[in-house]
């Protein structure tokens, strides 16, 4: 397969994630969407790294995975706390910062 096929896959995944971020009202789904976007980038990085024979792209992908994991851990923790308080994880209910 050519590099292009991987990059197209990466772009498609990224767009799916982006649409998820824009459309979904459920915060849990929002998290999934951001994970998809991050992994879309990972696919691109890994593919380019392979085709260029340079390992630093793959190392970068590992970093992103680690960072995403910790981010999700914190995010989910907050989400659980929020659910316990309000009983809802709908984005439209979280509007306390209205200016």
């Amino acid at each position, binding site marked *: 397969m050519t590099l292009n096929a991987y990059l197209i896959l990466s772009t498609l995944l990224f767009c799916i994630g*982006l649409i998820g*971020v*824009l459309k979904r*009202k459920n915060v849990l789904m929002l998290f999934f969407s951001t994970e998809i976007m991050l992994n879309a980038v990972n696919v691109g990085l890994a593919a380019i790294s392979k085709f260029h024979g340079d390992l630093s792209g793959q190392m970068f992908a590992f970093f992103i995975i680690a960072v995403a994991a910790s981010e999700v851990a914190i995010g989910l923790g907050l989400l659980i706390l929020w659910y316990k308080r309000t009983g809802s994880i709908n*984005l*439209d209910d*979280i*509007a*306390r*910062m*209205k*200016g």
Partner: protein
Amino acid sequence: MEKYVYIALFAPLVGSLVAALFSMRGKIAFTGWFTSLMLAVSMIASLNLLSFVYTTDIVLNVTLFEWMKAGSLNIPFGFIVDHVSVVMMTVVTVVSTMVHIHSIGYMENDEGFNRYFSYLSAFVFSMLVLVMSDNFAVLFIGWEGVGVCSWLLIGFWYKKESAAWAANEAFIMNRVGDVGLLLAMFLIYWSLGSLQYEEVFQNIGTLETSTITWIGILLFIGAMGKSAQFPLHTWLADAMEGPTPVSALIHAATMVTAGVYLVVRSNELYVLIPEVGYAIACLGAFVAIFAASMALVHNDMKRIIAYSTLSQLGYMFVAAGLGAYWVALFHLVTHAFFKSVLFLGAGNVMHAMNNELDIRKMGGLHNKMKSTSIIMTIASVALAGIFPLAGFFSKDKILEAAFNGDAYFLWLILWITAGLTAFYSFRLVMKVFHGEQNYSNDDFHPHEAKGFVIAAMVPLAILAVIAGWFEFAFVDFVTKVLPSWEASNIVSSTVWILILVTSAVAIAGIVYAVVKYRNGGFSKDWEDKSIHKLLSNQYYIPQFYENFITKPYHKLSVWVFNVIEVKIIDNTIENIASLIKKTGGKARVIQSGNLSSSLRLMVLGLILGLVLALVLSLFGGVK
């Protein structure tokens, strides 16, 4: 020896800072005594330095720290103790020590007692910085420092409107002169690349005459502001609003002589431009007679002495302008002693008379204030220039210098002024201490000042008597740095004739004043004469300044305020502010607090940014 330099310089600062700690409190006698003690320490250190320089002829150079160093600019915070500056240090510290002690008595019932001593010591520190500096930049710091302290002290009773006004007047007038000094400094640095006295005066000869002339003129404008020479003279008489010991220290003995010091210090520059020197001498002679004539008719005790100070400063500039630099410095020293005593005596009289200043309401005080009367009479004799008191030696030399320089007209003016000086000094003495009593015993209870107050005046009075006797030692001493000068054009018999003629006119002035005021003084209709009105209104110069400078300037300021400030600047700023406010009002709907819509906006922004980057990279030629 370096440590004495530091002690002399910083002891007054320590005193000032300690007194400042108590500045918001009521009177604490400790601050007065502590600052006086610090001044005494500084005085002893200065005397030590004087004897050191006198015996060894070593010039001390001390660099406190690197101050400005950038590229070729190098201005250290350095001090020099040479023959000239050590003389100035001695005079400043001796007079100010005595003035500090005198002030303890003078200010004893004032609620700003501690504040006063803090200012007074800060002044002495600035003055020492001024005279000890070894470059123009540090001199300028001292120059401005004394200006600020003078402002603080003239306006010491700032609740009185006239005092606040006089303080501002003095400060603003001095700014005019300071512009001259600053420009001179810029010009010196621009053409010579240094501000150190040593380098500047070594290389000054390499410049074109026109540049030197400009530097000389601009430096003298600075000196004119500080030394209150015409036309910047009006502030000195108004500065008498301050406490009297301040007038003695700042506006008679030290600060106003800073201008003379500057010219004496820059002698190597003025030697090259004798025309400017001659112009300085002419202005000095004019101020001498101009101020003396105003002193003749004034009835305000302190103003009479202030005009006398102006007149004597004129004398000093004549000597400095004609190249007799040590004579100028000599007159500066003797004048500091007798004039400060005169002012301190005036302070005693004011104290005794409940701050009355009008000499028409005094008279016959001799019996009640014997010591003050005797001391002030001695100082007046010294001021008049009668042998063998200090004023005789220095003033006589100035007259000789004028005669020797073929400036016979200047000599004539100074000769007349010598007579006027004698007359107005004794008019003051007669009106205050002798003659009829012009106040009622019910309203006033004059009393002699306290013992220590008189004791503080005695050393100065003694110096006013004997300072002239050290003329030859003084000449030997200061001419190691200053150019020597002697009356070489005239034979010794002429010198003797000059001395006799000058003494004659001085004695005639005294005798005339004594006889005239013993017999009741001048008649009433004398006061209606136009010349009297002209003199007592100070030649209408203050009115002239008021009508032709202050008022138009005020009108201009009002116009600028109404048109430029309010209509242009304020309007612009207000419009900008309201524009931003409106934009904010419009944009606040974005902040709905909804995360989902925020995310959408964020994505929109991202896409817009990407599109912009794309467009720019395609069409903008960004590489």
